[in-house]
């Protein structure tokens, strides 16, 4: 099927783009379009206007400092994945990005676009939530920062207002003594994950002072569960996580199978994240 008709604007400044959005209730932002264009073609979305931000300058940056990685609205997944500096500062970025669709899609799709598309089956919204990052949004009313915990309202629904553009995402750097890991199970590599789990652990010497898990495809919105207590009580972290999750049946997998995958992957990524933290600590001391 083909998209329904819409008006189109390709502004060359952010101000122009924001004014257009403010003036048109049914307008949508087009960046990479790798999720939006299929929705248009399947007529699951029919915006009255598209505001194409690809010609807006200064949105393609990947800025890295001690605090973390700042990714502009037009930085493509492939560019973020190719940044060795970004991977060094926050290793979970590259770990998860290599699972985002196929390279061809990553060449066009943007990381910030994926965040505000707010798909609970997508990797990057979960990563932002697990790392407690944030998204900066702009509108004619000004700029504001939305913490990841407040970004996701429901399935494919972010808390951005219709006239706001997400201009930058911030992924905090991995702290000293911390480790991360990510694994997902998909029918084919590059497909939507049946289940994906990321772990972020914080060590203080041999003691685990923090253990959090982020889940892909097991709830309506990207979900993070703190399992520090379960880990330290030698209880079952996966059981603790499942108590807060609602795996659902769909055409790809049953709820029972998803729950099973949550257990398997939770065990694997917790162990891998602890190993990661220890190997980082060794590197620092040697």
């Amino acid at each position, binding site marked *: 099927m083909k998209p329904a008709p819409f008006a189109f604007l390709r502004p060359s400044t952010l101000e122009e783009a924001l004014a257009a959005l403010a003036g048109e209730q049914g307008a949508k932002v087009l960046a990479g379009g*790798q999720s939006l*264009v299929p929705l*248009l073609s399947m007529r699951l979305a029919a915006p009255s206007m598209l505001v194409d931000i690809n010609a807006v300058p200064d949105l393609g940056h990947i800025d890295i400092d001690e605090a973390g990685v700042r990714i502009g609205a037009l930085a493509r997944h492939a560019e973020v994945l190719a940044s060795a500096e970004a991977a060094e500062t926050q290793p979970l970025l590259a770990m998860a990005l290599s699972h985002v669709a196929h390279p061809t899609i990553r*060449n066009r799709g943007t990381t910030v676009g994926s965040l505000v598309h707010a798909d609970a089956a997508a990797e990057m919204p979960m990563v932002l939530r697990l790392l407690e990052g944030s998204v900066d949004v702009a509108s004619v009313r000004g700029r504001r920062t939305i913490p990841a915990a407040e970004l996701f309202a429901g399935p494919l629904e972010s808390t951005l207002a219709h006239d706001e553009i997400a201009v930058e995402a911030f992924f905090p750097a991995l702290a000293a003594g911390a480790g991360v890991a990510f694994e997902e199970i998909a029918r084919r590599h*590059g497909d939507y994950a049946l289940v994906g789990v990321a772990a972020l652990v914080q060590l203080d010497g041999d003691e685990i002072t923090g253990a959090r898990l982020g889940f892909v495809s097991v709830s309506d919105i990207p979900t993070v569960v703190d399992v520090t207590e379960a880990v330290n009580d030698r209880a079952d972290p996966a059981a603790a996580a499942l108590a807060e999750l609602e795996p659902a049946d769909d055409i790809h997998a049953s709820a029972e199978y998803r729950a099973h995958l949550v257990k398997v992957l939770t065990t694997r990524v917790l162990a891998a994240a602890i190993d990661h933290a220890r190997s980082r600590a060794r590197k620092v001391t040697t």
Partner: protein
Amino acid sequence: MSNAAGEEVHDVRLHVNGSVHEVQVPARRLLSDALRHDCGLTGTHVGCEHGVCGACTVLVGGRPMRSCLMLAVSAVDAEITTVEGLTEADGSPEGRLSPVQQAFSDCHGLQCGFCTPGFLTTITAGLRDNPDPSEDEAREMIAGNLCRCTGYQNIVKSVLRAAALRDGRGATSSGTENLEDA
């Protein structure tokens, strides 16, 4: 400005295979459709039309992208290469097959041929990034493209053969005898 259906159209200048195409299209025209209908370049094939099958893959600024997931009006600044642009100049009107195209011919890398344009463009860019792929890397390179004839074995052989041809290895041979173990 409107078309016969009363829909607003946009003047769009597309840069395809080194030529400029001035086309008038509605905003909703997919790049894949603009290439085929408005530029007359029907080598780009449209399969699933939602980014899954990879048949419509073209090179945008040298990088493979799905032309069905781009709007023509959003492709104005890009240098686009379609399957028609892969042949190399040799003085003849039709040019010479590129190493990837030659490899597909050598290795029987196509059956019905519908998916082939997407494979050719994807592999052309893939070999630029990784000129000497292992068999596993060759499979990874084409993981985003579907062949419904399921001729993947010969497509993987074609990737390895194309790497050899690019490298000058086996350039004079059109046989596949050295690929039996590939």
